[in-house]
């Protein structure tokens, strides 16, 4: 029988904004999944393809969060040999407020930023074109 995702499951996109090793703290941008998309659709279709769309995320509900580096590493379930750096992106699937699964999503995020950059670098088309 197909296991259904619990209704209190939520997805959060987390970007490491600023990592201060001296003060041992980290600032992250936290954005929830947009109400237009369901957690099921996200986990089963989109995340598996390792692509990212900006429309998934509810940018208006963005907030900054501060963590101790150790605390965030634990939250993300990083091993000791796994590095935590600025500009890294994670998708966290939470259930009842607790992380259920963490995807390291820096690569799809970089692909998206590259796509946007490339489109911006294109020469604007003239009317004749």
């Amino acid at each position, binding site marked *: 029988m197909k296991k259904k995702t619990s209704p209190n499951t939520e997805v959060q996109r987390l970007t490491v904004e600023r990592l201060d090793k001296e003060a041992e703290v980290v600032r992250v941008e936290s954005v929830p999944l947009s109400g237009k998309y369901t957690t099921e659709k996200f986990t089963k279709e989109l995340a598996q393809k390792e692509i990212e769309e900006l429309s998934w995320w509810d940018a208006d509900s963005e907030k900054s969060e501060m963590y101790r580096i150790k605390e965030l590493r634990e939250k993300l379930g990083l091993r000791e040999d796994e590095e935590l750096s600025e500009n890294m992106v994670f998708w966290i699937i939470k259930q009842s407020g607790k992380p259920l699964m963490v995807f390291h999503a820096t690569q799809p995020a970089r692909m998206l930023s590259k796509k*946007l*950059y490339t*489109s911006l670098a294109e020469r604007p088309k003239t009317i004749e074109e």
Partner: protein
Amino acid sequence: MKRNDNLRIHVINVGHGDSILVEFPDYTTGQQRKPRFGLVDGGGLDSEVKNKTLDYVNKFVRCRLEDDPSHAPSAEDFIFEFICLTHPHKDHLYGILPLLNAYCAQEIPVNHRPREFWDCGFRYNTVGYLGLLQYLRDHREVQFIRVTSGTEFHYDDVEVLVLAPSVDLRNRYDTYGVDLNDASIVLRLSRGNGVAVLTGDAHFDSWGKVCEEFPRKKHLTYPPVRIRDEETPDVRDPNHPAIVFLSKENQLNCQFLKIAHHGSKRGTSYEYIEKLSPSSFAITCDKDEWYESHQRSWVGKFPHPITRLIIGEQTDQFEVDDPRIPDIESLGDKIGTSNMNGTMIFTIKGNGNVVRKNLNDERNEMVDEARLGQAL
């Protein structure tokens, strides 16, 4: 319309964050004059200050234009030259979004829209920044430009030279080695002998590259050629063995400096302050209470004691016999901070003199339009 023949730097009080309006001398064609300006960063760290830059730009435009009772607004009234996002951290970025929404709206004449958007080229992965790129992709009338050190723009007699980021640093963005603050666009604005440097949040790596790429200029002088023992002073010999080098011109010398990274200890070092040798400073930081109430006291005081010490040394306020770290008040009127003076307007005269006017607004209150009008 009020006239402006000076380069003016409006440092808007957005608390912890940068939002700087650069006002160029009026664009003149025949009898017509138009205000001409650009924006460097937009502040917007939290909801209290997110719309402050937009409000300030609106009031600034109104104050500049409505002085003349016979004024009738037209599509040619002002020129919004550029928006420069020094780097995409939240305290520089988030105030730009409402501004773009307002000035690129369909009902706004094309001539009133920002002409260019300058970007540092660091592909940041936050939703806020990616959203901004998407917005610009959908509004192609705003030309997107990745600037790098050496890029020059000219607005009549004002030269805007990009000092950073260097190409060398930019080529390393793809690895995780470059701190985003070091990707900051640093601008040098000069008019006559008046020079202002706007630094974003540039740290030591960035300043190292700036000092390397903009050394003191060496000038060659060629001794005169003597022909048949007759002195011909107008003819110079470039192959003469006794070419003389004069190394006098310091390309980084400035009168006004927006201290990097809100006065943090990582944005200021004595070596580069000595090279820049500014006489007037601005620091964009919030009050101590704000840092304490927002759990940001871990970053230390703003401006950091080390920064105050360096500025004190530069402005001859620091005595070796009395080695106490100077507080901001004791540094005199050469240094303005947004947490004490509110929004500040610095006029950079062509002879190098700098005059400051304070609007004394709090971070969470909009600037008083009447007071702004008087200051312009």
